[in-house]
C-alpha cells in the first residue's frame, strides 16, 4: 500500500472537479429517487432500470439522426420525456391502485417492474454494446494546469446546478410542489382539504422518473450503454438517499457530494483501495446519524 507521492495542488483541484461532475449524475438520479421516497414513500427499485432505459432511448433517438449534434440535443430532450411517459402510463394504470398498500407491496411492485424492464430492454435492444457520440464541441478535453479535463464533464458540471435550481423552483415556487411537500408530511390532511392527492402523487412519480431518465441520457455519451447499467447505479443512489435523509432533495445533493468526492479524492490518495472509500463514508455517517445528515421528510 503506497501513497501516491507527488500530489500537487493542481491534481487535487482537477480531481475535485472530476468528482463534482460525477456528483452531478449521482445527484440527478438520487434526487428523483428521493423525491418519490419523500412524497410517495416508495423505494423505487425500478429507478435504476428507468435510468438504463433513458440511456438506451437517447442512443436510439440520436441514431435516428445519424448521431449528429442536432440528434444529440433532440435525444437529450426527448429520451427523458419518453421515460416519463412510460412511468406515467405505469403509474396511472397500475401503480396508483396500490398506494394504500404496505411498503413491502410497493417495493415488490417496483422490483417486479424492474424485472420486466430488464427483459424488455434485452428484447428491444439486444445484447450488443452501444455507444453514443457527443457533439463535436463537447468532445475531447481542455487542459487545467497540465491535466486534461473532458469538455463533456464540464457540460455535466453545468447541468448540475441547473437541475438543482429547477428542483428548488418546483418544490418551493409551484403549487404542485407545495402540495407535494404538504402531502409528504401529512397525506390525510391534504386530502381532507379537497386536493386531488392522487394527481399530485402521479406528478411527483413522473418527475422522479424523468430525473432517472435524464441521468441516463446525460451519461449516455460517456458510457457503454448495455444491460446491467441499472444494477450499477441503483445501490449507489439508495446509499446517497439514505445518508442524505430519506426524501430530502438537498440531502441527496449532500450525499452525492460525499459519494462523488470521497470517490475521486480516494482514487488520488490511495488508488488501490479507492473502491472502499465511499462505502466507508456511508457507514461512518450512518453510525453517527442513522437517519441521515439532513432532516428526513418523514
Amino acid at each position, binding site marked *: 500500500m*503506497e501513497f*501516491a507521492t*507527488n*500530489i*500537487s495542488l493542481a*491534481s487535487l483541484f*482537477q*480531481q475535485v472537479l*472530476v*468528482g463534482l*461532475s*460525477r456528483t452531478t*449524475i449521482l445527484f440527478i438520479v438520487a434526487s428523483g429517487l428521493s423525491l418519490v421516497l419523500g412524497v410517495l414513500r416508495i423505494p423505487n427499485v425500478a429507478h435504476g432500470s428507468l435510468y438504463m432505459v433513458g440511456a438506451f432511448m437517447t442512443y436510439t433517438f440520436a441514431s435516428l439522426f445519424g448521431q449528429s449534434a442536432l440528434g444529440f440535443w433532440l435525444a437529450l430532450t426527448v429520451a427523458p420525456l419518453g421515460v416519463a411517459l412510460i412511468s406515467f402510463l405505469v403509474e396511472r394504470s397500475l401503480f396508483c391502485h396500490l398506494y394504500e398498500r404496505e411498503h413491502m407491496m410497493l417495493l415488490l411492485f417496483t422490483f417486479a417492474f424492474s424485472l420486466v424492464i*430488464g*427483459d424488455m430492454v*434485452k428484447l428491444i435492444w439486444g*445484447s*450488443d*454494446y*452501444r*455507444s453514443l*457520440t457527443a457533439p463535436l464541441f463537447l*468532445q*475531447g*478535453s481542455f487542459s487545467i494546469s497540465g*491535466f*486534461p*479535463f*473532458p*469538455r*463533456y*464533464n464540464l457540460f455535466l458540471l453545468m447541468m448540475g446546478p441547473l437541475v438543482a435550481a429547477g428542483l428548488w423552483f418546483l418544490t418551493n415556487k409551484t403549487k404542485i410542489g407545495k402540495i407535494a411537500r404538504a402531502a409528504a408530511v401529512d397525506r390525510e390532511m391534504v386530502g381532507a382539504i379537497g386536493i386531488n392527492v392522487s394527481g399530485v402523487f402521479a406528478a411527483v412519480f413522473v418527475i422522479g422518473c424523468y430525473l432517472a431518465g435524464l441521468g441516463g441520457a446525460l*451519461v449516455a*455519451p*460517456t*458510457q*457503454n450503454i*448495455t*444491460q*446491467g*447499467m441499472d*444494477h*450499477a*447505479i441503483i445501490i449507489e443512489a439508495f446509499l446517497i438517499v439514505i445518508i442524505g435523509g430519506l426524501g430530502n432533495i438537498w440531502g441527496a445533493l449532500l450525499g452525492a457530494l460525499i459519494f462523488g468526492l470521497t*470517490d*475521486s479524492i480516494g*482514487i*488520488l490518495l490511495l*488508488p*488501490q483501495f*479507492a*473502491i472502499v472509500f465511499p462505502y466507508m463514508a456511508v457507514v461512518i455517517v450512518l453510525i453517527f446519524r442513522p437517519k441521515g445528515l439532513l432532516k428526513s421528510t418523514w
Partner: protein
Amino acid sequence: MKNLSVSSISFSIMIIACMFVIAPSSLAAKVLKIGIVDCYSGPASTYTNDVRDGFKLEVKKINAAGGILGRKIEVFTRDSKFKVDLGLSAAKELIYRENVDIMMGTINSALALAISNLCKKEKVPFFVTFSKSAKITGAKGHRYVFSITENTAIAGKAAAAGLAKKPYKKYWIAGDDYEYGHAIADGVWSNLKKMQPGVELLGQSWWKVGEPDFTPYITAILSAKPDAVIIATGGRDNVPFLKAAKATGFNERVPFFMHTATELSTLKPLGLEAPEGVIGTSNYFFYYPETAANKSFVKNFEEAYNRKPAVGAVYGLLAAKFIFGAYKKAGKVDTEEFIDNVEGMWVNSPVGKITMRAYDHQAMLPMFMGVTKKVAGYDFLVATDIVTIPGKDVMPSIEEIKKARNQ
C-alpha cells in the same frame, strides 16, 4: 393450528403435481447431446451469443451431412443470467435429466469452476468456452475439463512478451477490481519483470466492475507520470474506458496496453470514436489472419447470422471441431476414449492449426498483438501492425501447471 396440517398437505400436493406435470424428456436412442450453460442476459451476452452461434453453425453442417457416428447432434442451451446458483442448477438439470454427453460454457469464471467441479464428479467432459480463469486448466484442472479459450496466464505472458520489446521502464497498473483484472495484471507483471528486469511499478489503481466514470482514475494516473500503463479490464468496461481515454487524450499522453481492446465487440460499438494507438491482444479478428480458411469462415458466419464473427465464434467453432473430431476418431460414443482422443489432438481453424495440450487440456491458441487505427473501408477502428505470438510461446509451462496443482 389446523393451518399447519392443511397447508402442509397442499404443499406436498404441489410438489407431487409438479413431478407429474413435467415429465422428464425421453431418452432418444441415436442422439448426441451437447448441453451449453452460459449467460445470455446482461452485458456478457454480447460475447456468449457468438460462441453459441459459432458452435451451432458447425452442428448444422454436421447434421446436414448425417451427423456423427450415425447420430444426430442435439444442442441444449440454458441461460445462467450470470448467476452461479442458476447456472449450476441448470448444469445439473442437463446432466441428470437430459443426460448430455458433453457440457459447454461459460463466461462466468465462478460458474465455470463450479461446473468443472460437478463434471469431475459426474465424469462428463466439460469444454470451457469463455471464462478466462487460469485456474480452470491450471490449479483446478482435471481429466474432464478442457479449455478452448485463452486465459489470464496466457494473456499475461503474451502481453509481457510484446511489452518487453518496448523501451518503457515505469509502469502503472489499473484494472477491474475482481479476479480477472487482478489475474491479468499479475500475469503481465510477473512475466514482464522476468523478461525485462529493469521495469518499475509506480502504482496501481482498481475500480469496480461497471465503473461509470474513468476520468478520475485517468487523471490520477497521469499525475504519476508513468511511461506506459497496463489496463486490466474486461468485457463491458473496455468500452467506457476507451471513451474516457479518447476524451482525455490519455492515449496521446501515455501508451497503454489493454488485453481485449482490439476485439470487435469492444471496437465496433465505439465506431470512429475509439482512441488510436491502443495496444491490445486478442485471439481472433475477422480480418486477420488473411487466410482462405478465415475468409470462408467469415463468409459462412455472415450468411447465417448477418453479422461479422467476433472472437467467441471461433471458440464455438473450435469446441465443435474438437468434440466431433474426437468422437469420429474414437469411432464410438465413450467418454473415456473420447478424452483420450481429445488429448493432444489438433484441428484446423480460421487461426490456423490448433492443438489441445494433453497435459493440462488447454488449447494452444495464437495471440495477436495489434494497435488500434482508423483504416479506410471500416466504420470502426481495427487492429494494425499485428504481431502473431504462437500458442506454444505463451502457454504456461507444464512445470508451472504442476506447481499450481501442488504436484
